[in-house]
């Protein structure tokens, strides 16, 4: 350009850069309805609307598929079947097993068979209903224990060993064994799966998709179309919730929209109605866990054999890594001297289960937390004492079952602090007295910790890129490979760049995540969005800062080390400065590039899966929660009365965002363990298929006392500004609610019975556990 924009040299306010509770970058848009999601984008002329036809049997074969009624249905412009796909037909993200459309075998109720594009969404959905899919049906395999017995696996089993667990258990003074079923979870992102495909030149495609993994959508769309990846661009500004449910599950709908767009030559939008989204997309894996443990008379673990079995549904999807993460977390925060952990990946005839906040970690933790409570009842001590006794400690008690040393172990101190601040001991005494006086209502209390490993366990995903442009008016455009789903990633990355360049966050515009800006990105998952992309963006900003510094130093004839960026100004001496915008113009006029990429890869991590040894995690995020509940022993109904949380986010990049993640994660975890019940009928059809029969927490489920504190300690590993990841770890703090329910039930037997309580711990299950506890207590003569 010839004529540069005028600049002001106002001192900018940088007080809300990294570390400040700066508001969400889109807050103003969100409260006025102006934040655009995929379904809100202005559609191209002639856009068609798609619907997907699926099988309603869970297992069998298609005998005949008659789509003549579909083709002649009003408004239909294009119909897509398996044979119409020019490229690959299996969209499995890691391993094959996820056919985009099926023409023969059906492996779950809800499996897509064909898709339709019509003039209106209603016409598309009406057309789908006119298909005649004649199937030969077989009895579906739905029982995970049966699948385990028959070794029906989607992937091979995996083991982790340290020492001789069998010998340690056999020689231990006390032994216990138990098993548990842990329920799955529907993501229920408020914005369902949606994609808009717009045909481009050279057979290419522009895809707007609500996805946590734009690069994978790009690759799969290219592959189903049979074109190179560089002809597909994916654009993702924000998701209306993801939670893992849009890591792999967004891609099939983008592929179908793209194929229909190719076929019709028009833009195609595919938005799943909720009644399709729930049966057709994967959920959190239900797990079946077992333990056999040996411990001493004080309750200290000596050996453990733990088996975690994920119900994976019909295909592998991400189940290898998810069951691995369940195994990595089946020790949670506790040292097990001799340990054997086995993980199985069972095949059943349901939708393929997938990533969901915690990625198997929560399901794995449940078994060792059950063991802690069971040990406490067996030796007659408070469960908190047993948990503290078994925590990872110093040398000799710091090695995980996968041979990673637990460094910078914060939990002993963190738990002590929470024990005091929550008045755990005093409340324990108050509850004992209260329970003695109340015959029907019983209170329970529990403190449970979380130690969650941060990094993708698939090493190559631990990399990220960013792209920053500085324009000649001093405004900055920031792009990185992460996606915004409400976790505050964009707000944090924006703060990091503002801090690095010492400019106001208001000067920076963060744009939609796009595969043509930052290529080959990893999914925004594993809580690692800020660790990876924040550091990549910081590196891009540092490159630009260096270039501008060199230019200003040369022009002002000073050493480059003398250049300082402060409060929106660039100083070349103690009292001489120009505004950031003036510095940008100076750089432009001197032909210095004002655009830079940044890149980051996580150091130190490695894992040899063959020997199940390594350092899969860069560091651990820690936390603990105390929950108090009251149950009605006549009905099984209960309330969560009070929750106190102390959580470790390192040096918080944004306390407002971090606390929001902790509050929301806890409540979502509480829903998983209490009210959210997935139900399939005997034919394998999902019957918890709407918000009317699947209960997620509402405002009225929020505990009356809900206190969240941040544990103030910088991350000792070199993460961006010594912060820690926060997306997933708080989810598992909700295990304290489940443990408190067991505590309340155990009070009926003077804490000498440890009641089994599968999850979700619905009132029905609580009532069942009350009955069983009373029965066992009577047998023991405890009451």
């Amino acid at each position, binding site marked *: 350009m010839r004529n540069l924009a005028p600049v002001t040299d106002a001192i900018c306010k940088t007080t809300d850069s990294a570390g400040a*509770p700066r*508001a*969400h970058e*889109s*807050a*103003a*848009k*969100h*409260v*006025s*309805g*102006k*934040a*655009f*999601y995929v*379904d*809100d984008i*202005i559609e191209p002329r002639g856009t068609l609307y798609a619907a997907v036809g699926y099988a309603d049997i869970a297992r069998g074969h298609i005998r005949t598929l008659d789509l003549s009624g579909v083709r002649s249905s009003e408004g239909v412009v294009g119909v897509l079947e398996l044979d119409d796909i020019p490229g690959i037909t299996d969209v499995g993200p890691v391993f094959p097993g996820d056919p985009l459309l099926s023409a023969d075998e059906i492996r779950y109720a809800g499996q897509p068979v064909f898709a339709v594009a019509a003039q209106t969404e209603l016409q598309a959905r009406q057309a789908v209903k006119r298909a005649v899919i004649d199937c030969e049906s077989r009895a579906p395999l739905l029982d995970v224990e049966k699948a385990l017995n028959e070794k029906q696996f989607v992937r091979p089993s995996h083991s982790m060993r340290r020492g001789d667990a069998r010998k340690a258990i056999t020689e231990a003074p006390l032994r216990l064994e138990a098993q548990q079923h842990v329920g799955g979870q529907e*993501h*229920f*992102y*408020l*914005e*369902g799966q949606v994609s808009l495909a717009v045909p481009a030149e050279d057979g290419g495609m522009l895809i707007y998709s609500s996805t946590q993994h734009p690069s994978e959508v790009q690759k799969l769309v290219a592959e189903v179309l049979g074109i190179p990846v560089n002809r597909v661009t994916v654009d993702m500004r*924000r*998701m*209306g*919730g*993801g*939670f893992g449910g849009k890591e792999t599950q967004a891609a099939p709908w983008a592929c179908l929209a793209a194929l229909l767009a190719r076929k019709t030559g028009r833009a195609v939008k595919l*938005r799943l*109605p*909720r*009644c399709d989204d729930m049966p057709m997309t994967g959920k959190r894996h239900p797990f079946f866990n077992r333990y056999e443990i040996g411990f001493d008379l004080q309750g200290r673990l000596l050996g453990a054999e733990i088996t975690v079995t994920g119900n994976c549904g019909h295909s592998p999807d991400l189940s290898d890594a998810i069951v691995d993460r369940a195994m990595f977390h089946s020790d949670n925060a506790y040292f097990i001297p001799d340990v054997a952990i086995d993980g199985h990946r069972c095949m059943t005839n349901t939708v393929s289960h997938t990533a969901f906040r915690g990625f198997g970690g929560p399901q794995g933790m449940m078994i060792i937390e059950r063991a802690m409570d069971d040990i406490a009842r067996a030796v007659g001590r408070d469960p908190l004492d047993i948990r503290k006794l078994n925590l990872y400690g110093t040398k000799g008690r710091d090695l995980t079952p996968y041979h990673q040393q637990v460094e910078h172990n914060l939990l002993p101190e963190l738990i002590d602090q929470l024990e005091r601040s929550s008045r755990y001991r005093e409340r324990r005494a108050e509850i004992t007295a209260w329970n003695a006086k109340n015959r029907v209502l019983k209170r329970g209390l529990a403190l449970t910790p979380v130690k969650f490993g941060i990094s993708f366990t698939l090493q190559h995903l631990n990399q990220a890129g960013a792209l920053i442009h500085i324009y000649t008016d001093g405004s900055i455009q920031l792009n990185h490979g992460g996606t915004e*789903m*409400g*976790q*505050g990633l964009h707000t944090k990355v924006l703060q990091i760049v503002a801090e690095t360049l010492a400019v106001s966050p208001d000067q920076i515009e963060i744009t939609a995540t796009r595969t043509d800006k930052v290529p080959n990105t990893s999914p925004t998952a594993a809580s690692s969005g800020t660790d990876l992309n924040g550091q990549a963006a910081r590196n891009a900003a540092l490159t630009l800062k260096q270039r501008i510094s060199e230019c200003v130093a040369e022009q002002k004839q000073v050493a480059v080390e003398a250049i300082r960026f402060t409060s929106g100004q660039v100083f070349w001496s103690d009292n001489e400065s120009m505004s950031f915008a003036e510095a940008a113009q100076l750089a432009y006029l001197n032909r210095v590039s004002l655009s830079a990429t940044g890149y980051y890869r996580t150091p130190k991590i490695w894992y040899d899966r063959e020997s199940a040894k390594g350092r899969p995690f860069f560091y651990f995020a820690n936390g603990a929660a105390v929950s108090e509940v009251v149950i009605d022993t006549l009905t099984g109904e209960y309330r969560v009365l009070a929750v106190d949380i102390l959580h470790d986010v390192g040096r918080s990049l944004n306390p*407002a*965002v971090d606390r*929001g993640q902790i*509050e*929301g*994660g*806890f*409540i*979502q975890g509480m*829903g998983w363990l209490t009210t959210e019940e997935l139900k399939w009928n005997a034919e394998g059809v999902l019957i918890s298929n*709407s*918000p*009317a029969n699947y209960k*997620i*927490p*509402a*405002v*009225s*489920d*929020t505990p*009356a006392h*809900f206190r969240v504190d941040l544990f103030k300690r910088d991350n000792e590993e070199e993460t961006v500004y010594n912060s820690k990841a926060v997306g997933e770890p708080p989810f598992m703090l909700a295990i304290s609610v489940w443990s408190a329910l067991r505590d309340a039930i155990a009070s009926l037997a003077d804490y000498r019975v440890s009641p089994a309580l599968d999850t979700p711990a619905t009132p029905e299950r609580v009532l069942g556990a009350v009955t069983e506890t009373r029965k066992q207590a009577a047998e023991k003569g405890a009451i």
Partner: protein
Amino acid sequence: MEYQLKINGRMRSLNAEPGTPLLWVIRDELALTGTKFGCGVASCGACTIHLNGNPTRSCITPVESAVGGEITTIEGLDDPISAAVQSAWREKDVVQCGYCQSGQIMSAVGLLRQNPRPSDEQIDSFMSGNVCRCATYVRIKDAIKLASDTLEA
């Protein structure tokens, strides 16, 4: 069929089949996309609008039943109660993914119009039809109380 609707203070005419959910008319015909589709069965609250001042689930409201009424969407909020609620929402950093939030705000404004000083139980009761999967509930409650305080001051 042609309908005349009064929406955000303006008369708008549009064509729709009788029985078409008001949500579709608002989003697809009138391009007011601040109101969201969540479940389609009035069980999540994302589509909440005001019909004659009352929070209403637009996904199950037939277009014809809104004729002659006053429709307000998130884009049309323009009164002291709404301003207080929107400001409190920002002050308390309520929003995470944001998708349910226009519905939450429409309900919160409706609540404060009927009850300027709601108790915790009244907030729970009135707002329990608006679900938030990010579970921003603690802050939704705080923001409603802050807005109530602001309006009283």
